[in-house]
C-alpha cells in the first residue's frame, strides 16, 4: 500500500503528463528477503537486531513518535482533533487535517457510531478501562477534545445477501435491478470500447445500462485529455483503474479509501495479466478493439469472483500488500529450506511451501528475485479460489507472473496436502478442506515439459520432510494457529492488531478467535482497519501516529520506516494504555521476528 501512499494522487489525473503508463500496477519494491543479498536501504530491514532496535523505537513516546516526522518539535503537545462525520467524507477531512496541522505528527480522530447494536456486537467490555490506572503517563500525551458526533461508521454487511445471485432481468425487471443496487460492493471490468468483460453481480442485461453510463463518463474525461480516477456519488465511491484497453471499476459503499480500492483493482488486473500475459492482452485489442475478452478469459471468472469476495469480506494481505508467514523456529525453517534446496531439480525456478495460507519456505536461484506481488498473485489463485484445490491432488498450469516477466508464462506445479492429521496425506479429488488445513507445495519452472521432474521433486521432498520431522513441525504450527492478543501481551486490552514489516513485506496478526470469528464482525474489524490505514496513507499525510475513538472501540495506527501497526481495543481504553500495548506488541514482534517472519529465504 505504501507505494500508493507515497505518491501524490489527483482525483483527475492529466493523461498528457503521463502518456506511457507503466504496464504494471505499482508494487512494493523488491526487498532484501526476495533479493539476492541483503542490501539494506532505508525501508528494508537492517542487517542486525541491534540495528533494528536502534532504528525502530520500542518506546512510543511523543518524542519518539515525532522522530519519524519531519515536523518541528515545537507543537508536540498541541494535538489537533478531527471529527469525521461520515466515512465518505473522510478523505477530504483528513486532508484538511494534515494541511492545517502538518507540523503535528500525532493526530486524534473522533469517530462514533449511531448503531447502538454495534457497540457491543464487536468489542466486548471485559477489559474496559481495566488497566488505565496502571499507566502513569503524562495525560498531555495525545490529548484531545472529545466531541462526539453521530456518524454511520461501520455499516453492517449481510454476506448471504451480498453474495447471493441476482436473478435474471426477464424474470422481474425491477426486482433484479433493486437487488443489484442493494449490493454493497461491485466490481466491473469493461473494455475501452465499452464491452462488459466481467461483473461480480448480475447478468449482462442488468449491468448493460450501468456499463454504458460508466463508459460514457470515463470517455468524456478521456476526450478532455484527462483520466478519471475516482468519484463519489452520495456515499458510494467509484474507483477506476485503466490498464491496457481495460477499465476496471470498483463501486463500494463500504468505508474504504480510493487507495484501498485501487489496490483491489490492481489485484484483479494482475489476475487477468497472469492468465493472458501483457502482449496477448495488448494484441487482442490492437487487432480488434471490439474483441470479447470473455472467451480468452474463460475460466478466470471464478478466480476474479473469489478475489472480489475476499475483498468484500476484508483481506489483510491486500490492505497491507504483504503476506503472512507460518510462525516456527528459525532452525526448523532452515531445515525445511535446506531440504527443499536439496530436493530441487534442474528445471526448478522457484519453490514454495505454503501452509494454512501462510508462507513456510521459499527457495529461488541466486540471480532471480521473487516479487512480493507475484507471490500474492499465487496466494490469491491457490487460497482464495477453490478451482485448483478441487482439481485433485496435483495440478499443472501455465501462469504469467508479471513481476518476473509480464511477457510470458511460467509453469506451475501445485500439490495440496492435508495437514489436519499428523499423517499429512495427499488430497483426494474434490476433497473440500479448510484453507487452514491445506499445505501446498508449489514448484515453478520456465520449462513446460517439467511436470514429471517437478512431480518427482515433490514426492522426494515430502518423503524427506517426513523423515526429518518437518511435516510434524508444519502440522503443529498449523494446528497451534495464531496466538491470541493476550498470549502476546498478557492482560492486554487489545482485541486485535495488524503488524506489517515493511522490510520483509510480510504481516503478522493474532487470531480472530472469539471476538471476530464470524464474518460480520470481521468485516467491521476490517472497516476500522481500513479507516485507520486510510488516515495514515492519505494524500499529504504527515501523520505517523493516528488515534481513533468511537463508541465501539479505541484504535491506533502507528507508522514508522520499519513497520505499520494498527491496533484495536475496546471502547474507552485510554490512549496511554493503547500506546503502552502497542509498544509491547512491537517489542514482542522484534523479539520473535525471526520466527514470525520468513527472513531471507534460501537460494541455490
Amino acid at each position: 500500500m505504501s507505494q500508493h501512499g507515497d505518491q501524490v494522487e489527483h482525483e483527475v489525473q492529466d493523461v498528457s503528463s503521463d502518456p506511457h503508463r507503466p504496464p504494471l500496477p505499482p508494487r512494493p519494491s523488491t526487498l532484501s528477503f526476495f533479493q539476492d543479498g541483503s542490501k539494506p536501504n532505508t525501508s528494508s530491514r537492517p542487517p542486525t537486531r541491534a540495528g533494528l532496535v536502534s532504528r525502530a523505537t520500542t518506546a512510543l513516546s511523543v518524542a519518539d513518535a515525532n522522530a519519524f516526522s519531519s515536523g518541528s518539535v515545537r507543537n508536540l503537545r498541541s494535538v489537533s482533533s478531527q471529527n469525521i462525520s461520515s466515512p465518505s467524507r473522510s478523505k477530504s477531512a483528513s486532508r484538511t487535517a494534515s494541511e492545517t496541522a502538518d507540523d503535528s505528527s500525532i493526530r486524534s480522530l473522533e469517530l462514533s457510531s449511531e448503531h447502538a447494536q454495534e457497540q457491543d456486537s464487536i468489542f466486548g467490555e471485559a477489559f474496559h478501562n481495566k488497566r488505565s490506572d496502571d499507566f502513569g503517563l503524562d495525560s498531555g500525551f495525545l490529548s484531545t477534545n472529545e466531541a462526539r458526533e453521530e456518524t454511520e461508521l461501520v455499516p453492517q454487511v449481510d454476506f448471504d445477501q451480498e453474495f447471493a445471485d441476482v436473478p435474471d432481468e426477464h424474470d422481474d425487471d425491477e426486482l433484479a435491478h433493486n437487488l443489484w443496487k442493494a449490493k454493497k460492493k461491485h466490481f466491473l471490468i469493461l473494455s475501452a470500447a465499452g464491452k462488459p468483460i466481467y461483473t461480480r453481480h448480475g447478468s449482462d442485461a442488468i449491468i448493460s445500462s450501468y456499463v454504458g453510463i460508466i463508459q460514457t463518463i470515463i470517455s468524456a474525461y478521456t476526450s478532455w485529455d484527462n483520466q478519471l480516477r475516482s468519484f463519489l456519488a452520495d456515499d458510494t465511491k467509484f474507483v477506476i483503474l485503466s490498464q491496457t484497453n481495460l477499465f476496471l471499476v470498483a463501486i463500494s459503499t463500504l468505508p474504504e479509501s480510493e487507495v484501498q480500492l485501487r489496490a483491489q483493482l490492481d489485484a484483479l488486473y494482475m489476475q487477468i495479466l497472469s492468465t493472458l500475459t501483457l502482449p496477448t492482452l495488448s494484441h487482442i485489442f490492437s487487432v480488434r478493439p471490439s474483441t470479447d475478452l470473455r472467451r480468452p478469459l474463460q475460466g478466470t471468472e471464478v478466480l476474479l469472483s473469489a478475489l472480489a469476495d475476499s475483498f468484500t469480506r476484508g483481506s489483510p494481505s491486500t490492505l497491507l500488500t504483504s503476506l503472512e508467514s507460518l510462525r516456527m523456529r528459525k532452525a526448523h525453517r532452515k531445515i525445511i529450506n535446506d531440504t527443499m534446496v536439496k530436493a530441487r531439480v534442474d528445471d526448478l525456478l522457484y519453490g514454495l511451501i505454503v501452509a494454512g495460507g501462510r508462507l513456510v519456505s521459499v527457495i529461488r536461484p541466486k540471480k532471480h528475485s521473487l516479487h512480493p506481488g507475484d507471490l500474492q498473485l499465487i496466494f490469491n489463485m491457490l487460497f482464495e479460489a477453490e478451482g485448483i484445490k478441487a482439481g485433485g491432488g496435483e495440478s499443472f498450469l501455465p501462469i504469467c507472473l508479471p513481476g518476473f516477466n509480464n511477457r510470458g508464462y511460467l509453469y506451475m506445479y501445485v500439490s495440496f496436502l492435508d495437514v489436519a492429521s499428523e499423517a499429512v496425506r495427499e488430497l483426494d479429488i474434490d476433497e473440500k478442506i479448510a484453507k487452514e488445513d491445506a499445505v501446498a507445495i508449489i514448484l515453478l519452472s520456465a520449462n513446460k515439459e517439467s511436470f514429471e521432474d517437478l512431480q518427482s521433486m515433490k514426492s522426494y521432498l515430502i518423503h524427506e520432510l517426513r523423515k526429518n520431522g518437518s511435516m510434524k513441525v508444519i502440522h503443529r504450527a498449523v494446528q497451534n494457529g495464531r496466538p491470541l492478543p493476550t498470549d502476546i501481551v498478557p492482560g492486554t486490552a487489545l482485541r486485535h492488531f495488524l503488524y506489517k514489516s515493511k522490510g520483509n513485506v510480510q504481516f503478522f496478526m493474532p487470531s480472530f478467535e472469539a471476538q471476530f470469528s464470524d464474518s460480520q464482525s470481521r468485516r467491521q474489524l476490517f472497516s476500522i482497519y481500513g479507516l485507520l490505514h486510510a488516515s495514515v496513507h492519505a494524500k499529504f499525510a504527515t501523520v505517523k501516529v493516528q488515534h481513533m475513538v468511537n463508541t465501539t472501540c479505541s484504535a491506533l495506527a502507528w507508522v514508522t520506516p520499519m513497520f505499520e501497526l494498527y491496533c484495536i481495543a475496546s471502547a474507552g481504553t485510554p490512549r496511554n494504555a493503547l500506546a503502552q500495548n502497542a509498544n509491547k506488541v512491537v517489542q514482542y514482534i522484534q523479539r520473535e521476528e525471526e520466527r514470525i517472519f520468513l527472513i531471507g529465504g534460501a537460494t541455490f
Partner: protein
Amino acid sequence: MSNPASATTAKPSSSVKLVLLGEAAVGKSSLVLRFVNNDFQENKEPTIGAAFLTQKIQLSNRVIKFEIWDTAGQERFASLAPMYYRNAQAALVVYDLTKPTSLTKAKHWVAELQRQASPGIVIALVGNKLDLCAEVSNSDANTPAPSEADSEAVETEEAEATEGGDARKVPTREAKAYAEEESLLFFETSAKAGTNVSDVFRAIANAIPEKELKPGKGTGAGRGTDSAISNAAGSAGQATVNLTDRAKQQKDNCAC
C-alpha cells in the same frame, strides 16, 4: 519397491497414461470425479490448467492404474495439450450431447491426436450429459438413458429442453457413425447419473493389449514416495502402444 496394490493382489499391475480432451464444460472433470470418487457436483469449479489424478481398476487378469490428465478446455490452454497427450496410451475425447459445437471440437481433437499422439493411442469418443436426453427411441443406440432424465436436471442446464424434457442435440447415430469411421471407442455417458462411466474406462483398459503394458509405475508419473525415489527421468517415450487392430478391439469392447 513396495507397491501396495501388487502386495495385496496377486494380479500384475500396470500403468496407463490417459488424457481427457474436449471443450470446456462438457463434463470431463465430472467424468473423472465419477470414476475416481463415484461422486457428482452440480456446480463444478472449472479446471485451471490441468489436474493429475490416478485411479486403479481391477480387470479379470490384471490391475490397471490409470494416470489421468484432466485438462481444461479453455482456448488459452490448447497450446499445452501436446505435453499432456504426447505419451498418453489412451485419450477420452468428450462432447456434450446437448451442444453440437462440442462435437465439432471433439472431432478436431481426434484429428490432432491421430496426427500427433503416439500411433497406437486408444481413443474413446464420449457423449456426456445423457441424463438430459429423453429415453432412446432410437433402436441403434443401446445405451439406455437413466429413467430420471428429469425436468429438474434440465432446468439447471443452459441447454433448452425440447418437448418431453429432451435436450439432446447430437443424435447417437451421427456420432457413432463418425466413431466407427475413425476407429474410436464410442460411449454415451452421464457423469451425473453415473451411466456408462466406469464402462468407458474398463473398455479402454481392455483395448490396450496386455503385451504392451508396462509393469508397475511405467510412466514414472506415480504419486507415492516410491515413485519419487525411482527417478522420473528416462520414463518419457516408452509408452508407445502399437494397436494395429484397433478397429477389431473396438468391436469387442465397445458398449454400442
